[in-house]
């Protein structure tokens, strides 16, 4: 009986957390503009309408460019930082690590404002470059955490062993550290792309006319209620989820082998 109440409570909590996600998928295939119970009939009309709008495709293009550039740069910086933490001790290292991990704790609205103000000063506001810059700031800590986790599973003498067998520092990096971290790096690429693909507040502040998909959703939302949002949202959700699942899969598959 006690266990049953436990399961019921857990199920209710999960239902609350996942209700909006599930509802948005269901509504995206539902014919009513204002869905209620009972549901209307099945339709793909909202998808057809949403994806016949040129600005949606424009936004998808922008989002893909931003996500790809963000994930490449953030994964590189994240890996470099994780390797530095793994390999070197130096003065001010706590401050260095704080710089590496703090950005996600700052409210996005504040980061958006600071970015907007600063990027306007340097003439990058309203450009995709501006969004990429801001997203790298946000996504780097995730990449760093993933790579650091992987490095902590590595025998520290592996790198020295490579030097000992005739590999210089760069060669050891290429032949030992990078192959060892490969799954973590791919996983960081996926996760940082997902972070960028979903972020809309900072992007909204700095994007100007170059809207990404979530910014477009935000702007549609400010107008009329429109189930096209559910259609676009479902596609965004599926994209992010495939990236996250790919990332998880890579981390876990590797772990089982060790």
């Amino acid at each position, binding site marked *: 009986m006690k266990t049953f109440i436990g399961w019921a409570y857990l199920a209710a909590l999960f239902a609350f*957390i996942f209700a909006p996600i599930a509802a948005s998928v269901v509504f995206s295939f539902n014919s009513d503009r204002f869905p209620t119970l009972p549901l209307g009939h099945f339709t793909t009309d909202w998808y057809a309408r949403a994806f016949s709008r040129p600005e949606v495709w424009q936004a998808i293009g922008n989002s893909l460019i931003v996500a790809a550039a963000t994930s490449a740069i953030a994964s590189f910086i994240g890996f470099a930082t994780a390797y*530095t933490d793994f390999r070197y001790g130096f003065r001010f290292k706590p401050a260095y690590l704080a710089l590496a991990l703090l950005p996600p704790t700052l*409210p996005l609205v504040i980061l958006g404002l600071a970015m907007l103000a600063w990027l306007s000063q340097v003439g990058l506001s309203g450009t995709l470059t501006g969004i990429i810059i801001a997203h790298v700031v946000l996504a780097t800590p995730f990449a760093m955490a993933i790579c650091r986790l992987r490095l902590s599973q590595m025998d520290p003498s592996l790198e020295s062993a490579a030097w000992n067998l005739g590999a210089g520092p760069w060669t050891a990096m290429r032949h030992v550290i990078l192959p060892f971290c490969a799954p973590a790096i791919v996983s960081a690429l996926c996760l940082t792309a997902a972070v960028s693909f979903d972020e809309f507040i900072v992007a909204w502040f700095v994007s100007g006319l170059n809207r990404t998909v979530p910014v477009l959703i935000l702007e549609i939302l400010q107008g009329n209620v429109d189930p096209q949002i559910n259609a676009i949202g479902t596609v965004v959700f599926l994209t992010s989820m495939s990236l996250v699942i790919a990332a998880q899969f890579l981390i876990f598959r590797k772990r089982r082998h060790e």
Partner: protein
Amino acid sequence: MNASRKFDPYAYVWRLPLLLWQGAFFVIPLIFMAAMSFWLVKNYRMEPTFVFDNWERMLGRGAFWDAYWITLWRAVLAGVIASAIAFPASLFLAFRLTNSGRRFALLCLIVPFFTSFLVRAYAWQVILAESGPVNAALGGLGLGPFTMLNSGFGAMVGYLTLVLPLVVIFQTWSLAAIDKSLIEAAGNLGASAWATLVRVIIPAAKTGLVLGALFAFIMTFGDFVSPFYLGGSKPPTLTILIIDTTKSGQQWPRAAVVAIVMILTLFAVATAAVKAAYRGRG
């Protein structure tokens, strides 16, 4: 001479990217924002100067303090409510599930972080609408209709959607890490289930419980989607104030004042919470 003292370009290739990027695009923008709060806007352009006009104007306004207290109050409330709702579920996850079951549940709880919160808020808008599915179901029982949107309740639904997964993850981690023999020992010494919970389990998991509540506070404090789309933006929160001031008024320096007050508040709360979380620990 010691070889390790020499300048090593290899080391700096890995060390510098973070310093350069987060320095140029995180630290400097924040410093610039602080400096900007002392600038003035004339003819829709910012002019560098050093005056306290923006500070006096914002902090001297009753509307600002109304927004401040409502934001702080909601963040505290969300922290407490989310912790209370999450705790029984976390207990169950930590003590009644197998390791792999628990890992799967926590993995599921990470999923929401990678879905657009905006789309989720929109879904709540539809679900909680006056003619939406919830009211339709309640109507079938002869209740309602209730107005749930554009109210503190609506905003709280949004906040909880945002923070509950993280709070459950934090609580479950710290509860699952408790040495099980501690609990058995308490039972062995004749402690009731309730006494074991209050005297043994909660103190042992304190760090995770406090950190969970802290993160709920931080996320609620900085959220603008819930109060805007589900809370009806009246009364406005600090985040709505920042966006309104930035987007419509072009008054970036005044928005910066709000942002700095928010950062200081977050810093104070986080410091106090972390101190509380680790008090009495090695």
